[in-house]
């Protein structure tokens, strides 16, 4: 699939705007989802997604066909998101009480009282989203690229501009931190 996208990118680079809009259609939700999980705010994630594609279009003459288009695009998305986070020096203190998956606050400590598996899943999703937001951006991005995008360590390294060995260690730390977050709240549940 990536080869087909690279071919489209090549055509877009040659001035075929229809090819570029096709690429936008194919990647818009993936890029949006990644940015949303990185950033946290839906409205800004929408703006950043649009900005990512406009930046990509302007930068298209510099795209090298040797680089995979998806990797290159996520690099732009990631940089745009980090710029916003840095500019605002956004430091989040995530409270599970604030989290709302469907308009209602989900308290994981209510887990023991959840009636069925579906609600238990919702609780874990709430935990995961909170854990993600609690992670430092450099751990969050590596975890998202691996778990959501299924990128290889080499592709993550290219996207983030770091060594594959750093990806390996950073990913392991991110997972440990996320699991520690799980355990922390699971402990609270069991202690209730």
């Amino acid at each position, binding site marked *: 699939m990536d080869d087909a996208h690279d071919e489209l990118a090549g055509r877009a680079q040659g001035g075929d705007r229809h090819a570029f809009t096709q690429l936008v*259609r194919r990647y*818009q939700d993936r890029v949006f989802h990644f940015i949303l999980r990185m950033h946290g705010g839906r409205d800004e994630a929408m703006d950043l997604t649009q900005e990512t594609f*406009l930046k990509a279009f302007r930068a298209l003459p510099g795209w090298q066909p040797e680089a995979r288009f998806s990797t290159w695009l996520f690099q732009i998305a990631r940089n745009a998101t980090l710029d916003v986070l840095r500019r605002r020096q956004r430091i989040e203190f995530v409270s599970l009480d604030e989290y709302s998956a469907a308009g209602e606050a989900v308290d994981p400590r209510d887990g023991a009282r959840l009636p069925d598996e579906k609600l238990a899943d919702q609780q874990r999703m709430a935990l995961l989203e909170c854990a993600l937001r609690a992670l430092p951006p450099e751990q969050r991005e590596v975890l998202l690229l691996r778990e959501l995008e299924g990128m290889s*360590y080499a592709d993550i390294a290219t996207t983030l501009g770091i060594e594959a060995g750093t990806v390996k260690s950073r990913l392991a730390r991110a997972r440990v931190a996320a*699991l520690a977050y799980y355990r922390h709240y699971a402990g609270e549940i069991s202690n209730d």
Partner: protein
Amino acid sequence: MTEPTTQHASEMLLSAYWDGELGAAEGQQVAVHLAACRSCAGRLVALQALSADFDKLPRETLGYDLAGVIEAQLPAAARPRARQHETRWWGPLTASIGAVASITIGIALGLALFGGAAVPRITAMSVFDTMPPGSLCVGLEACYDKGARK
């Protein structure tokens, strides 16, 4: 399954093993260890559960066709590049004036050289004559006209 006396697998090793990012030999070593170590096997299960949770995360979507929006903005985005090749209204005028001026100067020079007043003969190349220009050289004898010695 017995607990081995050897060291447990590091988080980094387990994480890379789960991702299939270890080499064949290293991966085999971890697999052997996991078969014998309940603790590490349990940590691997936790990693698998975490990945499974990511799979269950609702896939958020934009909810509209961004391509249409982007398409409408592409000309604006491309304008800076297009502007470099844009032709201004005074461009052809400037070129025409330049062409007329070049032709006029050419004709004037032609008339001055071939059709007008006599051109003085240029004698600067006489430096290559047997006599030095102005016979000013007082150095080597070779500089003087051999005929003068006779």
